[in-house]
């Protein structure tokens, strides 16, 4: 089966030596929920724009077998996108928004959309400007989930929402939308919030993909060990990817270390994605030789 997205050496350069993407290569398979995670300015939005055909980039890019820049219109029949929650026009009524999407999108189901909305407080007669930020997000999600698209792209979908709406957002996505024939690509800063939802993770830094793994592989690769002072040198000798201190102990993060050698060092735990993210992003950057 062909992947939903295959990107090879994507590069986007502004001016002479400012890179938004630098030879970024990755593949997204069908039926996966993939998190694209990176600090501000790492290239997340540039990558998404390229995937949606909104921005020409260098390199090879195929989305559902199509070239997004050249075949954008055909591609958009199969791809949905939620950027910021506030892009619906403020004057539009809920019912008009439904009419509009039905008019422009061949794969939109009015019945599905209305069924989603029936479970919220949102009335069809309301205008977008009368809705709370959380309700606008619900409306947006209802419109998008009613589109039978193969790829859903979410760019910071829960930004600025309170915890109840955030939880509801992902609950709807998993309970009413996602299935093995659909694929979701999501970027967010709320790593803790989505880490258990993801099947795969891509870390992006300075336009480069610095980690590309399934969540299963992450669980097997990374181990955190609490080490006492007297064992610190022994731990460093095993090549940890990060060290921090907590309660007077040294906490080392190991990537693909030999479990038998870690066994005697101290108490172990499975680090969260946020721990791995911080460790990956705080490592010294790759040598700048490529651009110097």
């Amino acid at each position, binding site marked *: 089966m062909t992947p939903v997205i295959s990107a090879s050496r994507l590069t986007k350069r502004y001016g002479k030596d400012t890179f938004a993407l630098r030879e970024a290569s990755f593949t997204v398979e069908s039926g996966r929920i993939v998190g694209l995670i990176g600090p501000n300015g790492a290239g997340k939005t540039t990558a998404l724009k390229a995937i949606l055909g909104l921005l020409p980039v260098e390199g090879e890019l195929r989305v559902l077998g199509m070239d997004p820049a050249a075949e954008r219109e055909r591609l958009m029949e199969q791809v949905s996108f939620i950027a910021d929650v506030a892009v619906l026009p403020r004057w539009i009524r809920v019912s008009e928004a439904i009419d509009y999407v039905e008019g422009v999108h061949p794969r939109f189901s009015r019945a599905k959309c209305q069924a989603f909305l029936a479970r919220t407080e949102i009335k069809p007669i309301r205008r977008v400007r009368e809705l709370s930020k959380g309700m606008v997000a619900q409306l947006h999600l209802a419109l998008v989930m009613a589109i039978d698209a193969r790829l859903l792209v979410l760019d910071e979908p829960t930004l600025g929402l309170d915890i109840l709406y955030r*939880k509801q957002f992902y609950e*709807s996505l*998993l*309970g*009413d939308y996602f299935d093995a024939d659909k694929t979701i690509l999501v970027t967010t800063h709320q790593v803790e919030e989505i880490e*258990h939802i993801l099947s795969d993770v891509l870390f992006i830094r300075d336009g480069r993909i610095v980690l590309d793994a399934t969540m299963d592989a992450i*669980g097997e690769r990374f181990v955190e060990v609490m080490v006492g002072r007297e064992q610190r040198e022994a731990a460093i000798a095993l090549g940890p990817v990060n060290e921090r201190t907590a309660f007077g102990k040294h906490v080392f993060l190991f990537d693909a270390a030999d479990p038998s050698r870690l066994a005697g060092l101290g108490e172990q*735990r*499975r*680090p969260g994605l946020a721990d791995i993210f911080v460790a990956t992003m705080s490592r010294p950057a790759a040598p700048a030789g490529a651009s110097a």
Partner: protein
Amino acid sequence: MSSSWNDHTPIYIQLRQRVVAMILDQSLQHGDALPSVRQVSAEFQLNPITVSKAYQQLADEGIVEKRRGMGMYVLDGARQTLLARERQRFLTEEWPALTRRLALLGFDLAELIARTTKPEESA
């Protein structure tokens, strides 16, 4: 914001343990359906693959069975199977640890038993 998972064990194993606990305390009985993968995935905000893995493990252990197109059901004798296994685990793992702890604290086993209310009294 999701359920409290510990960071020592993979989540699918913790999910399996929750189902096992529900069968042991009989809130899930033989013939009962497990909630669908989709339902659990949405409720606990987990990837469906994680939920499927937990269910698959229970199926491999002979605790639940998959009925085509209907989902997972608790098998007859599931509780007995689990009880036997849990009893064995108690004897080999928990009891030795507990006796060591009792000895450490200087308790006399007979004395403790005498202090314990007999279960018949509350029945």
